[in-house]
């Protein structure tokens, strides 16, 4: 494994990085973010159109679909910055998951939806989890029954992030097999306003909006089936997993900076609390936890970019380590800030809440450990 040649950014990547940093630093201060998060359920995050104008929404799409063909490095640049600023805009749901799934569809579907998505006019949600089964990757009890010109969808989807703002749902429904099987899962695109779709909307602890969705005899056309390829579903989920890891790395690095700053400024017993050895050593351990995650992020980015065989194993290792690091860093940051970190008006606790949500998304720690072992054995034999 060699990193040297891959750590440098291309000129385009450097420009993207600078632009994202600049925009978010200027517009996305914590108080503005808090106003967005504390708004009513139905109010969507307001920076979406600017994201579109700056070209960010086109980033991961193929040039043939109007995109910029961005790879994992571009995704990680965007998401690390989103993590640093706790960005609420639904890039994950609309672009990576919804848009990503639509990219698997036939050309007429892509033509129909992708331009509106890239322009920031259409938002998506990805409905996959089902009640009590959020830790399994392939559990799908929702059924898709084929009749001559259509599919009928029945089932319940849980914790569908961004659904309240979405016009489109991309959802998983089982075409064949048993509920836990990896094969036989179809990805469908469904207009949220079609008959039989019922949504209960709510706020989430990380300042987003989500829905519980019931599908009751929902009829969609045959073309609504985007793919039934388990490999494509994996690609979609892996990319989302990778993106939230990058987001977490950004959030952790922000938490560490603000904790160090706070401890240097805050005085107790006549000295800055950053001079207490026990706190210093805890900050060091937080820094180490962050650097280890960061290392895995770099290697995973390169492995995905190079389509290396090792990418699955690295991604599993990354997500596992992010979970561990996020706990350690969040807990330490809150403890060292003290009471203020437990208030809604101070930013530290919001990083903690976002990181907590991320650690349960796209495979919890046990899932990743199992997956790491699977691909590790595979690698050792090859």
């Amino acid at each position: 494994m060699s990193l040297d040649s891959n750590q440098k950014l291309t000129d385009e990547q450097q420009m993207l990085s600078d632009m994202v940093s600049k925009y978010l630093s200027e517009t996305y201060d914590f108080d503005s973010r808090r106003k967005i998060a504390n708004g009513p359920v139905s109010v969507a995050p307001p920076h979406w159109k600017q994201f579109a104008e700056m070209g960010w929404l086109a980033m991961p799409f193929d040039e043939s679909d109007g995109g910029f063909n961005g790879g994992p490095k571009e995704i990680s640049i965007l998401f690390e910055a989103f993590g640093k600023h706790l960005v609420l805009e639904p890039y994950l749901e609309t672009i990576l998951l919804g848009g990503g799934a639509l990219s698997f569809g036939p050309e007429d579907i892509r033509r129909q939806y992708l331009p509106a998505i890239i322009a920031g006019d259409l938002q998506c949600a990805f409905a996959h989890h089902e009640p009590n089964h959020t830790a399994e990757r392939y559990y799908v009890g929702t059924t898709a029954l084929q009749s001559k010109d259509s599919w009928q969808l029945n089932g319940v989807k849980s914790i569908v992030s961004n659904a309240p703002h979405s016009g489109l749902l991309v959802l998983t429904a089982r075409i064949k097999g048993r509920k836990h099987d990896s094969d036989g899962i179809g990805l469908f695109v469904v207009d949220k306003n079609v008959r039989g779709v019922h949504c209960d909307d709510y706020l989430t602890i990380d300042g987003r909006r989500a829905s519980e969705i019931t599908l009751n005899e929902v009829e969609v056309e045959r073309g609504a089936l985007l793919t039934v390829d388990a490999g494509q579903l994996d690609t979609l989920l892996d990319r989302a997993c990778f993106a939230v890891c990058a987001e977490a790395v950004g959030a952790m690095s922000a938490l560490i900076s603000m904790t160090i700053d706070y401890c240097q400024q805050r005085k107790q017993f006549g000295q800055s609390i950053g001079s207490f050895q026990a706190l210093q050593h805890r900050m060091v351990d937080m820094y180490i936890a962050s650097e280890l995650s960061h290392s895995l992020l770099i290697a995973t980015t390169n492995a995905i970019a190079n389509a290396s065989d090792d990418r699955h194993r690295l991604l599993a290792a990354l997500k596992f380590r992010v979970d561990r690091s996020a706990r350690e860093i969040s807990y330490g940051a809150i403890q060292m800030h003290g009471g203020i970190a437990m208030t809604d008006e101070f930013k530290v606790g919001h990083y903690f809440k976002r990181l907590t949500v991320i650690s349960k998304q796209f495979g919890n720690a046990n899932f990743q450990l199992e997956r790491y072992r699977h691909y590790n054995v595979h690698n050792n034999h090859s």
Partner: protein
Amino acid sequence: MNEEEIAFRNEVRQFIKENLTAKLRRAGTNMTSVFADYDCALEWHKILHRKGWSAPEWPEEHGGTGWSPNKQYIFQRELKLANAPALMALGIQMLGPILMHYGTEQQKSDYLPRILSGEDIWCQGYSEPGAGSDLASLSTRAERDGDDYVVNGSKIWTSFAHRANKIFCLVRTATEGRPQAGISFLLADMNLTGITISEITGLDGTVEQCQVFFNDVRIPSANLVGEENEGWGVAKYLLEFERGGHNYSNDHQKLLAKVRDISGEQFSNNGLLYKDDPFFVSKLAELEIDALALEITEQRIKSSDNPGALTSVAKLVGTELGQKITELSVDALGAYIAPLQSEALEIDYAGTVIGPSNAVTTSAEYINMRASTIYGGSAEIQRNIIARAVLGLR
């Protein structure tokens, strides 16, 4: 448990059965911090008071029960396991013992009965903005003017100041000498002119904490507890009670029961219910063993003549273990950590709940539990205390 204790436990259970209404039980069930719904806490306080059980640990002369430590422990555990709402604790557990020790006869007869009955609910004006664990650095001033103290300054992390009718607070009456010197302990009505309150919304979206502002507030000098400038000694006495009064193992039992509930509904990544997942049940057993070890330690404290050392240990282990248990419950809860279900926690909520049936509190509980190692002497302060007072390190 001996026969007398079993009979006593049955009496407590019978009382709970007859008096803890569904609504009050719900208030207990829906607790996501050390505080229950305020109105329900008051209602339950009055029910206990009618039975003479609102302050069991007080001496009998002041309206306590004279129960043995074992009986007090049984009583607290039965209440907790029955999901009784917690009472507002500051009057009973902190101010009461202080007044018994430092108060004038007038103060005792004025305040103790009203604490016992729940007529007065006290809040604590203690921490100040920017002071954190360094309590002695407080700067709220009280200047003598005739028969009054005139108080100016601000207190923060004052739990339920927006609901309480009384406040006890530490104020600076002199600036010479060490920071600990020159502090006095005062009592005040919350409706005095010049007291204003600013509510603090917590990370879970609810209000439990406040900042309290004093702007030329006149507090009668008769409300001084102990001697002027010797409030630090009073405060330290109070801290002892804050740390020693609580049995964390009762909380842990309740939290562990919730983990078991969730693990019977939620599925792990391997397709098994968490309760059948070998990783999960092992982690749970590890925490249960620590909870058991702490429970025994708490009993050693009760039966010890000199529990000081172990009391700080119990607070430290109790809070850190509570954090680990809620962390495990969130591991089982999975993605259901996300829904913010503040409304579903209200006493009169009648709608549906998202996620496992007995987990509506879990998300907020996990978040709020992070505060347990911060307030009432942070984990760092506890370790400093143990290092000095128990291990003799300087």
